[in-house]
């Protein structure tokens, strides 16, 4: 089974084999990206528009680079400063853009479900680059690729996701993806940052770092999303760091070869110790960024193939 969907809106609708297809293709793009001449033309003639309704540096850069390396014409639209401020609705913005015939639309939006809404109204393929607290599928895919390359497999691993789960779309997409591939997932964080019903998602919930990290293969740290906190989730950053910040002492209870991940941008000294983040023997944070470009190339390649197949049919 190959990847057939028209959009990439989330991990939830994906079949495990679709995920594997995507990751396999991404692997080949990792090789391409490491060559001197990093150029393919599978998206030649196609137009990719990056529409970011929320600040982003790394994700937008990653999508832009991915598109350019595949030969697409890439346009960045920073929606924060544009017509939305003048009162235009999301749908109108989408319709306006749709009239310009883009082929791939990469969207980030501060509200859950906004990308799904937009996808209903346009003719092109839509990639979700993060919507509210809902999903961030390419982040989960790049995390999966990083884990698979570091661990040699992507099943039956003990994976801990730590920190601000409540506000994290990365956590949701990762829980869904890693769960579909039969891994054991543990969520670790203060109860104020892990919604109670999370426990029903086939995960184990811990509020103690050492207990939760014990025997883990993979430790994923999440950024404390200060901008989404509308009041009193944690008493202070220093207490948070003391109890939930990852340092080598807390990491010592995980497996000796456990890898440390972070989707970035990091708050050093809040959720992760700076030295540990830079430890090339444990931290794969830089690899995650590298895999990000490859995964986004693979996703856009597959969606473009489906676009062509749709046009031919």
């Amino acid at each position: 089974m190959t990847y057939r969907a028209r959009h990439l809106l989330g991990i939830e609708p994906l079949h495990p084999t679709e995920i594997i297809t995507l990751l396999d293709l991404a692997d080949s793009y990792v090789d391409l990206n490491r060559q001197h001449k990093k150029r393919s033309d599978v998206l030649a003639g196609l137009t990719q528009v990056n529409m970011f309704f929320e600040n982003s540096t790394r994700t937008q850069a990653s999508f832009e680079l991915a598109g350019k390396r595949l030969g697409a014409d890439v346009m960045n639209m920073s929606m924060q400063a544009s017509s939305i401020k003048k009162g235009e609705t999301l749908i109108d913005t989408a319709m306006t853009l749709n009239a310009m015939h883009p082929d791939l639309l990469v969207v980030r939006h501060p509200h859950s479900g906004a990308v799904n809404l937009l996808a209903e109204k346009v003719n092109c393929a839509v990639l979700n680059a993060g919507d509210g607290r809902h999903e961030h599928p390419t982040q989960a895919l790049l995390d999966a690729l990083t884990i698979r390359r570091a661990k040699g497999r992507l099943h039956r691993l003990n994976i801990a996701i730590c920190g601000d789960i409540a506000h994290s779309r990365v956590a949701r997409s990762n829980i869904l993806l890693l769960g579909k591939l039969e891994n054991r997932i543990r969520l670790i964080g203060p109860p104020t940052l892990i919604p109670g019903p999370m426990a029903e998602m086939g995960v184990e919930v811990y509020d103690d770092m050492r207990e939760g990290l014990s025997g883990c293969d993979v430790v994923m740290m999440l950024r404390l999303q200060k901008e989404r906190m509308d009041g009193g989730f944690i008493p202070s950053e220093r207490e948070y760091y003391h109890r939930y910040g990852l340092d080598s002492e807390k990491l010592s209870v995980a497996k000796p070869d456990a890898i440390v991940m972070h989707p970035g941008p990091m708050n050093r000294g809040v959720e992760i110790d700076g030295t540990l983040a830079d430890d090339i023997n444990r931290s794969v944070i830089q690899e995650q960024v590298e895999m990000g470009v490859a995964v986004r190339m693979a996703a856009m390649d597959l969606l473009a193939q489906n676009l062509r197949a749709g046009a031919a049919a």
Partner: protein
Amino acid sequence: MTQLFHNARLIDPEAGTETRGHLAVDAGQITAILPEAAPLPPDRFPLVQRIDCRGLCLAPGIVDLGVKVGEPGERHKESFKTAGRAAAAGGVTTMITRPDTLTPIDSPETLEFVTRRGLDASPVRFASMAALTKGRAGQEMVEIGFLKDAGAVAFTDGDHVLENSRVFSRCLSYAGALGALVIAHPQDPGLSRGTAATSGKFAVLRGLPAVSPMAERMGLERDLALVEMTGARYHADQVTTRAALPALRRAKDAGLDVTAGVSIHHLTLNALDVGDYRTFFKIKPPLRDEEDRLAVVEALRDGLIDTLSSYHTPQDEESKRLPFEEAASGAVGLETLLPAALRLYHAGVMDLPGLFRAMALNPARRLNLPGGRLCPGAPADLVLFDPDAPFVLDRFTLQSKSKNTPFDGARLQGRVQGTWVGGTRVFAP
């Protein structure tokens, strides 16, 4: 005798019975209920208008407590004319309209304006509720006495919770002295602020800010404590969760003058119906999980919850075609209340007299209105319907100006065949 509804299945919510028979109407009032075997005046008798009910159900017209009409301020969403037509088509013979308009109905002058508009344009009866505090801002009470004299049947700030308990207790005391009914939205404002869904696995998966169902219990417990303190007449607009029911039971057992309602949407839909961020399913309070829905259905059947209404809230397309969190809340319901309620009848959980007790008799009684009954002396506000007729709802066939129904494309059973207000036919299919 001027009208004779013969060969009807008479639904009497007061007696709790369903009988075959005939109903006689004179000068807008029901004058007699005749058994099936009673001799009827001959066909040629000229002064009698005979209406053959063909064995279909004849029930007292629905008294819909909590209808939002967009007048004043939002006529593009719903006017008295369109709301009245929708009501007639849905078997609603009295709309109890909400004061959460733009501007709010918080002065006798606004109330008078609305009443005049309604009398000019609405084919069905209506009665207005007034705001409890000026501007629904929760600071100063409205002129409860003047508004009551001007015809306000109840006082409510709609879905604005009156946060300041001191202000609320004074409003309750003052209204209580006048015998005015206060209707409140039981909800803890701190927990529910900024939320769009009920907490649960589904809300987590969809990444929606969610409120615990416990917030409803907390709001209700506070309100009931204040009612105990002040002795006011109190109605909770919508009780939609399991957790709130014991508090309601305790208050009723303690003899407080307390009643509660629920919307048809909370009885027939649950949180999962939101699906892929379908904003027509965004209502206030948000849809609950299935256990809550079942508990509330049970409470309605037992009579713990008294009234069932549509909470008709028209919203235009623009305010719904937005990301879920930003989209407006509410659903239209005047025309779908009866067929949706009949889902409970077809599922075998409620009988027809029970449904009409909740939809017609209880709201009329609570507001001291004469309707909701099927007995001599009651107004001839009637609905004739076929409880079995199946149809698929197309939202663009609705009479409402706004088409935001969660039942679009739903398979429903039960069609209204005629609606009469004071003996005058206001709807025919």
